[in-house]
């Protein structure tokens, strides 16, 4: 057997996603441009034009149709992908819920970006977090390498749990930043991700009468269906863990499943956050550890399904500082999610990095110190 070669190369986050999609061998890709997502679909169109990827590439007139095309394709048995961001994601809103309630195994990259007005293309997490209750699995990468790995894994998750999967990556911070990454050999991806079974979850075929989505004879049928989506998300948690281990064996990269734990052994304090700035947060944790502060970090890789059990393991700690790169009139989204598990007294919620404002390791360090030393019990907005 010939040796399989891993390619070490330098790619932006968006190109890493495009490479992952190519290696996943999709049948249908739909494309509509929106900054900072655009280079994903541009790269994929180039792969197809060069003959490196055999797939239908469908140019559409809006993000709503971008999701509608991959929805139709997925319901007819295809492996399908699209990508979006910010206003584009919100323009899809009706289709997001329809796709999830149809259990369509779609994968979509969401390059996170703030919402207007004013028009602003910089990074924020309000867009991807706003879809967390639609029935999609929602993941968030922290590095370019993880953006690649998560995208490959998303197809397997979508096609095993029959939930659509959104893979988030921070706009510009990851999407347009070049990092060195390892591309696994195609054979390894093929082994991890076998071709999609076009007959599941339902088979839409000429000559085979089946009606999907018509009015239910009893609302209980509909209610049962919604309960099944909840169950699917609970099963997805298990799938995420076993997938992570298997992927780790094949590529040497294991991330911890639902969450990544960093320096949590013996910690009295913890930081919880998601996305690329977790790198800066880790830097702050290292600095604080050097100062003698017993602190660790939990990075959420998935917010849907939500890692309730993992967060619950932080219950014995003195204080948990949750960083949100989003803002709602009721506080931070992750802060409220974590507080729903640990109780509000345990959690300090810091809202920062809004509208693309840079928030560095030193900013993290100061905010964390402030939160744990003064036992600040309110919600903080740190610009």
């Amino acid at each position, binding site marked *: 057997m010939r040796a399989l070669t891993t390619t070490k190369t330098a790619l932006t986050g968006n190109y890493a996603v495009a490479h992952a999609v190519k290696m996943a061998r999709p049948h249908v890709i739909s494309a509509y441009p929106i900054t900072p997502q655009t280079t994903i679909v541009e790269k994929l169109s180039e792969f197809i034009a060069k003959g490196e990827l055999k797939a239908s590439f469908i140019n559409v007139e809006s993000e709503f149709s971008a999701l509608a095309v991959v929805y*139709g394709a*997925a319901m*007819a048995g295809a492996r399908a992908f699209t990508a979006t961001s910010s206003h584009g994601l919100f323009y899809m809103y009706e289709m997001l819920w329809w796709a999830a309630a149809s259990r369509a195994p779609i994968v979509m990259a969401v390059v996170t970006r703030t919402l207007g007005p004013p028009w602003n293309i910089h990074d924020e997490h309000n867009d991807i977090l706003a879809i967390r209750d639609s029935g999609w699995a929602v993941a968030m990468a922290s590095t370019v390498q993880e953006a690649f790995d998560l995208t490959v894994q998303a197809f397997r998750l979508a096609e095993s749990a029959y939930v659509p999967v959104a893979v988030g990556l921070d706009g510009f911070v990851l999407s347009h930043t070049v990092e060195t990454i390892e591309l696994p050999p195609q054979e390894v991806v093929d082994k991890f991700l076998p071709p999609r079974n076009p007959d599941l979850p339902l088979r839409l075929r000429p000559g*085979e009468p089946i009606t999907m989505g018509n009015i239910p004879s009893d609302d209980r049928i509909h209610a049962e269906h919604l309960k099944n989506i909840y169950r699917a998300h609970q099963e997805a948690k298990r799938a995420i863990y076993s997938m992570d281990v298997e992927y780790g064996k094949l590529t040497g990269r294991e991330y911890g499943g639902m969450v990544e734990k960093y320096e949590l052994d013996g910690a009295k304090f913890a930081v919880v956050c998601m996305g690329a700035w977790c790198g800066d947060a880790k830097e702050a944790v290292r600095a604080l550890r050097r100062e003698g502060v017993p602190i660790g970090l939990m990075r959420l890789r998935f917010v849907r399904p939500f890692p309730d059990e993992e967060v619950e393991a932080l219950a014995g700690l003195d204080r948990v500082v949750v960083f949100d790169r989003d803002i709602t009139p009721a506080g931070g989204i992750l802060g409220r999610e974590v507080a729903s598990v640990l109780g509000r007294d345990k959690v300090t919620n810091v809202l920062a990095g809004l509208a693309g404002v840079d928030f560095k390791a030193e900013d993290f360090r100061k905010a964390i110190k402030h939160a744990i030393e003064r036992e600040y019990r309110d919600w903080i907005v740190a610009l």
Partner: protein
Amino acid sequence: MSIRIDLLPKKKYILPGNSACAGCGMMIGWKILGMALGEDAVISIPASCAAVVQGLGPKSGINMPILNVPFASAASVATGISEAFKQLGVKGHSVVWAGDGGTADIGFAAVSAAAERNSDVLYIMYDNEAYMNTGIQRSSETPKGAWTTTTPTGKKESKKDIALILLAHDVPYVATANIAYPQDFYRKIKRASEIRGFKFIHLFAPCPPGWLFDPSLTVEVARKAVETGAFILWEYDHGEFKFNPPSSALVDKSRRKPLIEYLKLQGRYAHLTEEQIKQMEEEIDRKWQFLLRFAQATRRTQ
């Protein structure tokens, strides 16, 4: 091509247990779609009467594979289905069965885009000239003068000519059809299904509760629309535009029946004055003149 009704396929695709209104024109059209494409079609249906007449799930009153989809998405979903079938090697037709609101209004951007891409989809718009599913609100396909619940004194604006707009997208096939002429509609579906790319058929389908006429009169109302010239049967096939019978004989205005014969059957036009009816006749004639010149122009350039 002449088609004998008694030789059409006998298998039924519209089954007892569907929940359509008595005399539904759309269901007559759907029956013909079943005869023409029965085993080959996979249908996408947006929010519409067609979305609710299927009967109650998990059962179905329609013996065809159907995907119900959000209002504005049908043309795009059907594109996805046809591309998936292409990639998976599945033979069949991706068909949209949509109302006038889902096509000419909320779904228009997606329909236009699918036409511009020349996606391999057969798009059939059944036109009952208003939002009938939600209770008779006007659409851009509601004719001028017609009563609806949102135009209580009659619609002020003209009917959008969606078929001509689609023709302007340079697609291979566009046709109009009418449920009173089942052989013509059947032939047009068959012809469209031979063509790869985007095909559009505008099907005229009267609605008894919405147009305020007795359910026994559906076919008569539909036929009168053609005989008076209010609805024109035509076909555009790879650059060739032609009128179809009986409309082809009605280019001569004197052979058309008076418009009042069509209008008087329906309560939605009951409030019209003679002056308004005269104006409607003039508008109809203007449409005929336009199509006639268009037909002559396309003939000259061939």
